[in-house]
Each structure stands twice: as C-alpha cells, then as structure tokens.
C-alpha cells in the first residue's frame, strides 16, 4: 500500500514541479483513520498529503466540472470508475481531454458498498499508469438482481416500496451532485418555476425527482454507485437507474456506459426496427 502511495506522491510532485499540471486531485487524510477526503494540491511540496488506502473511496472525476476551463492541465488520480466517469464527461462534451492529465491507479478494491458492483478496477484511459493492472473482480453475476426483486412485486407493492423509500428522501441532491451523468449547467430540479419539479418535500415530489433523475441519467449511468454512497438516507437510488439499464440491455443487447467517449446514448439515437409495443 505505502509503495503505491509513494508512487502517487512522487508522480504528483513531479507533475506539479514540472508545471505539467496546475494541481492534482487525489485523496487526503481526515481526522478519522477510516475516512479520506478529496484534496486538491497545487504546491509540489504538498504532494505528501496524498494517501492511498482502502478508504480512498470517493470518486474524483466530478470535480473536473468545477474547473472546466483550466489554464493548466488538472492532474487526476484515475481508477476504473473515474475513467468511466471521464468518458461520460467527454461524451457529454463537458470537459476536454487535453485539459486533464490522468494518472492511472489500478484499484485494489475499497471498503465501500459501491465497489460491490465494480467491474472495471483498471482505468480505461489514462496518461500514465502507476502500477500494473489489477485483476478485475469476478463478473458481478447479479448486476440486476435487485431490479429483478422489485420487478417481481405487484404494482401496489412496488408503489409502496418506492413510496416509502422516497418518504425518507430529504432532497439534498447529493446523488445528483456527485453523479458524473448529472452534468447539466442547471438541473431541472433547481428550476421549480418550469413546473417539472415541485420544491416541496412530499412523497409525490420526491418520487418525481427520483424517477425524473433516473430517466435523465438512465441511459448514461456508468454504475459507479456514488449516488448511493453519498445518500445520507441510504436510499437504493441505483435501483432506478439500473432498471433502465436492464431494460436497454433486454431491448437492444449488451449496453454499458462510459466504456468509451464516443458511443451515442441509447435515447439519443434509434433503429428503424426497434422493438415496438405501441401498435
């Protein structure tokens, strides 16, 4: 662990010293041993603050949107999930590849529930790879298991399940703010005057937020699981987006997002012979 951490620090230090990157985004310590926080290091001397341990959990890619027009490249420690998020942002025309310097750090698995869905420990794209790729975890046999569980319920049971789920939603929008597919300049949910989303906290409006957000990101979700990790109410948010992914998989075959930066999203294209149930 510490050897890799050392490599990361050295790499960041060099990037900053050489002026290749304006700053580097990685993980740093908090007051608790079992938590890290994203840090942004500009000074080469500060590179020693980066840590790499099983608690380096948070996905860092979304922070690139805070600085879309940097003067210098932004260095970013990039695991499999970050790289898929970056593909997402590239495809959605939100960042420019030349503005980021991706320091590939194959992931050895973190102590987080979100990693149970992981199928890409190694970065798909990077500018430098700091150590040999890890073996990817065995294919998650149950990618859509919980979606199937919910599908098996009756409509009323499903309504109760989601209704009660959204009763506890506090609409803090952490799920949205951490999501690399939620990259709108302004979220529809912040524009209550349009009429799509009421601001009040009610089961109905919470549900509408949940379903609308799922629909907005469903065909672009990279399944990083960050939304569920950040949810202070531990809501099963991916249960919605994965439903959409499951349906797309069933309708048109293997579908996975963030594996490249060019594939058109499912809802952004069509086939003349798409399945039709509306005759």
């Amino acid at each position, binding site marked *: 662990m510490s050897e890799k951490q050392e490599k990361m620090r050295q790499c960041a230090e060099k990037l900053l010293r050489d002026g290749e990157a304006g700053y580097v985004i990685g993980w740093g310590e908090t007051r608790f041993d079992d938590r890290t926080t994203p840090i942004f290091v500009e000074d080469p001397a500060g590179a020693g603050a980066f840590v790499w341990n099983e608690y380096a959990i948070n996905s860092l890619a979304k922070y690139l949107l805070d600085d879309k027009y940097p003067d210098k490249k932004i260095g970013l420690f990039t695991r499999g999930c970050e790289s898929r998020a970056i593909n997402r942002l590239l495809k959605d025309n*939100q960042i420019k590849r030349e503005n980021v310097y991706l320091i590939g750090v194959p992931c050895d698995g973190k102590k987080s529930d979100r990693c149970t869905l992981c199928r890409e420990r190694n970065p798909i794209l990077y500018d430098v790879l700091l150590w040999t790729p890890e073996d990817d975890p065995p294919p998650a046999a149950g990618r859509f298991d919980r979606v199937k569980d919910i599908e098996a319920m009756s409509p009323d049971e499903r309504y109760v399940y989601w209704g009660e789920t959204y009763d506890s939603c506090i609409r803090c929008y952490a799920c949205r703010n951490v999501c690399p597919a939620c990259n*709108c300049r302004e979220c529809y949910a912040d524009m209550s005057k349009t*009429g799509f989303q009421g601001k009040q906290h009610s089961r109905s409006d919470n549900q509408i937020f949940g379903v609308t957000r799922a629909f907005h990101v469903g065909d672009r979700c990279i399944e990083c699981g960050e939304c569920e990790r950040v949810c202070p109410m531990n809501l099963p948010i991916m249960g919605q987006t994965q439903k959409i992914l499951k349906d797309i998989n069933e309708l048109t075959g293997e579908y996975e997002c963030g594996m490249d930066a060019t594939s058109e999203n499912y809802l952004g294209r069509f086939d003349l012979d798409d399945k039709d149930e509306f005759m």
Partner: protein
Amino acid sequence: MSRIGVFVCHCGTNIASVVDPDKLIAAARELPGVAYAADYKYMCSEPGQQMIKDSISEHGLDRIVIASCSPRMHETTFRKMLKNTGINPYMLEIANIREQCSWVHVDKDRASEKAVNLMRMAVSKISKNEPLYAQTIPITKKALVIGGGIAGIQAALDIADAGHEVVLLERESSVGGKMAMLDKTFPTLDCSACISTPKMVDVGAHPNITLMTSCEVESVSGYIGNFEVGIKQKARYVNHDICTGCGLCETKCPVKVESEFNLGLSTRPAIYKLFPQAVPSKPIIDKENCRLLKGGKCGICAKLCPLGCVNYEDEDRTITDNFGAIVIATGYQLVDWPSMYGEYGGGRYKDILSGLQFERTVNAAGPTEGHIVRPSDGKEPETVVIVKCVGSRDPNKGKSYCSRACCMYAAKHAHQILEKLPGTRVFIFYIDVRTPGKGYEEFYDQTRMDGAVYVRGRVSKIYEEEGQLVCRGEDSLLGEQVSVKADMVILETAMEPSPGIAELTSLLGAARDVNNWVQEAHPKLRPAETQVGGVFLAGTCQGPKDIPDTVAQASAAAAKVIGLLNKSEMETSPMISAVERDKCSGCGVCVGICPYKAVTLLEIDDRHGAKRIKREVANVNSGLCQGCGACTSACRTGALDLLGFRNKQILEEVDALCL
C-alpha cells in the same frame, strides 16, 4: 395579469345542440385572467370575427381563446383576423369543442363538462403564451439537381424552362445515367437512346442549365432558400473549354480496361468518353489506369491532341455555389449478385448476364452491335433462362422489397430474344408477375404468346455442364423439380440505392429508410419532397420505379422547386425551438436528434467566474427548424423549448385538466 377573452362558438347547432355555451361562459368568467367571455352562432363568420375584434378594443384584451371547431380548421383564419388587431396572431388558442367534443359525445351534461375542461385548458395555456414573430428569409433563385440520369435531366429541364437557373451535377463524365444504357423501353419498345439523347442534348445546350460532370457534392450548409454547396470538380486532365470532342486522343491510348458503360462486356482506353453519345461529348482521363498518371512513361494522347487540351497536371477543385433548392436524383445501381448468390456460380460463369448487361448486349451501339451471343464463345444461344427477383423479395439473401421494373423488362428481354433469334427457347422463372401500368399487362400477354415459357418458382442452383448452364429449381405450380439446360442466363437483379447515398443524405440532413432509399416527407402526400425544407427528390433514389414514374416524379419535384423559386422570400414559422443559452451545457444530445440538422453546437464567448472563456451551446437555425420539438424532449435541463408549445404551456394544460 393577462386579459384573456373567451369566445364560444355555437357552430349553428353543431356545438350548441350538445354543449351548453352558457356553462362555458359562466365557467370562463371564474377563471383567473379572463377579462371577457361571450358566445356567438358562428365565430368564423364575418360578424363573428368583427365581434371578437370589437371586444378586443372594448375590453383591452391581450389574448384570445376561441372554443370552436378544430384548430386545424380555423386556426389560420383567426390568426389572420388577429393580424389586423393589436394582438399578435400567436396570442390565440383554440379549444376544440366540436370535433373532439360535441360531435363525439351524446350526454349533454357530460359533454358540456368536458367542453369546460377543454376551454379551461386553453385558457391556462394561453396565460403563458407570448407574442411570436415570423422571420422572412430571402431565396436564392437557383436550383441544384444532383444526378444526371433521366430523373435529374427531366427535373433540370422543367425548372430551367420555367426560367430558373439550374446546376445539373453528375458524378460520371456524362449525363444519361442508366437509361442511356438501355436498348428499348417497355411496353412501347421505343429505343431508349432515341428518347433520352435529345433530352441529354437539351440539358447540354439549355441557356439556364449549367452542366457539371465529374462532380460530387462535398459539403452542404444553410437551409431552404439559402443552401451553400461545396462541389468537388474531379480532375478531368482534358480542358473541356477547348476540346472539340474529335476523339483522336482515344485512338492511340495503349491502355485497355473494362468498360464501365458496357459493364465489362468490352474495353475502353484510359482517355475516353463514357459512351459515344456522351454529353458533354468530351473525353476525360481515368487516372487510376493512365500509364503516365500512374507514374509510367507515355503521354501519347497529349502528343496527338491538335489543340493541346490534355493537361496531366489537372487537379481536383472545389467550387462553392449558392442554391435555393436542391433535388436529389441519384438513382440506383443493381445489387452485386455474385456476392449474394453463390449457388448461381458467384460470377464464375461468363454466360450469366445481369439484365443491364443483356441491355448492352442487345443494344445496337453495344459491344456486340446488338447481336445476342454468348460472351464465352460468341455463339447464339438456343435456350435462354431468365431469372426474376434475384435479390428482390428475398429478405434472407437480398432485399425484402420488389424492384418493380424487373417483371416488365424480363418480359421485354424475352420478347427481344424471340424477335431477334426466332426459335430460341426462353424460360422465365418468376415468383409473381406484376404488371401495374398502362399497357403492361398486354405486353406481358404478348410475350407469352410470342413463346416465352413462364415457370413459377425460384432457381435454386445454376451450374455448368458440358458448356451449358443447368438451371435447377422448383416449378411450384406443378410441385416438382425442374431443370433447364440453357446457353445463356439472364438475372433480373434487384435495384439498390447508388453508392454514396448515405454520405449525400447525411450532408443534406435528409433521412433514409430501412433499405437506404431516400425517405420522402410523406409517403402519400409529399412523395417528391424530403423532410428537409428545400430538398426534393426524383426518381429511383427514393425507391425502385420505372421510367414513366421516374419522369413523373421528376416533374413533380421540379414543380415544387419552381413554386419555391418563384418567391423572392419566404416566411418561416415562428413556432420553432429556442435555446436558453444560460442553461445550455452544450451536451449536444439535441444535435443528433434533430432530423433537419437545425441544431448545431455554437461556440460563444462567456465568463466562468472572472475568467473569459469560450463554451459551446446549442444553436437553432430558424430556416431549418420545422418545429417538431423532438430536441426539447431530449433536453434534460429544459434549455431547449418549443415556442408556441413551451413546456410551461403544456404543463398548464395538464394542470388545468386536473382542477
């Protein structure tokens, strides 16, 4: 607060006999923003319209709801009426209480209740209406016709005859297309060249037509009335401005390659005219095959040319021109049957000809001067098998569609064989015989009487045996296997769109159907238009058809073009998509969804904090946008919205229903 006027039409008794206008008036007066409500027997009548106009000035109304017949009926009428008042014509909503209420319901109370709902929905919607203003765009009075086959020739001539400038663009070195290759045309059997070459000469000589051969479309921008097209003039290596077309250069060229025009049945030199009657009647050099251009030593043609026309330094050039309208007339090609039908020898047997190869064979100007002989040994065939639907109506191997013209030219081929070589046995394998056309059925009957034998069934295998071609298949009427030993086989193969159609349509923003044919704007009502404003289509680029249909459609497209070019400017609908740039993140999902290429990403100057930056946002071209709103539903943030059908307007309607 808006001042809404609500006007309820009785439509005689059409509405009033089922829906109670008083209930609507009473309900309207309860609605926020409604300043005035009234009813009348016929709102669309002169006094009815006057009444609305008077109420507008009397009550200071700023928007109008009319509860009446379908907006498809009188929306335009009432908009026109508003033009003469102080109110913007788009401050109008119509509640359809006739077609969708009084005419379809019986229970008066419940129909009235529904009418109130519909009226309330319209009132709610109109509270969010905003004035809209139509833009006018100038029209460039010049048309571009892409493709110099009979469709393109006909369209160009019609447009030019109406007095408009036309550029007729052809990829090959001569106009003429497929029709120039044909021998005779069914069912009248007049000689194809005799009827098409005069037209070719006409386009070459017409003062309003600029012929551009060896040219391809490279780029298209702009929109209806204002296209800017980049045209690639491929290097010809012969200066056509001075060339007289004497043909001397062709005589001594040492290169011999397969003639495209004769479909490999003869050869041609590297400096060549496509065919003797080519228009323009001037040669080009085929750079792929010219010895000198390939780096070898030659230069004979340049030495021979008395006028010094040959220029080996010639290069491709791009010419940019502006057009008001574009006609796609790119035609078809025949499918590559050898790659599809291994069981027919996959191209190994010389004496299997495609229908078009047979046309060249039987053509007096063709490689055999019209003698029907086997390519393998030059002998006249005694038995000929004609196979129809090769690649057509065969979803497993070829195309699922019918190529339409083959039934008739198969009959024509049989007729020609029996006429030129009396006593020949002709077998025609067919699935069905389709003869929908004037004189077609009669022609088919005649061919059978001439002696052609029609066998119902597909040929499953063709193989060579003792210098003959054995055709095996099932006679599905007799229900038994048949086998015919033929000296020559003619395959009537399927049509498919010309190569490059995908690139061209995507440049133009036009759609293609599942078989890659260009998609017409409406299959019944707008068959000569694409869904892109100002882009029309003619001939087989849209789908298989015969010459009469092709010419008819070409003239139809020309009529549409003339109608457009006769105007000096046109009004565009203001009900189009609009972008709120502040909200747009430039994700570009709208770009791919727009069927008209009306939405593009535009780089704008902006600020990010204190920094001056450039960022991309969606931009709607008001000339191209047709107002379908597909982009607005795809826009997650709501930065794109459809004027006249804004999100908040539609949501107001929804809300109003649920009071």
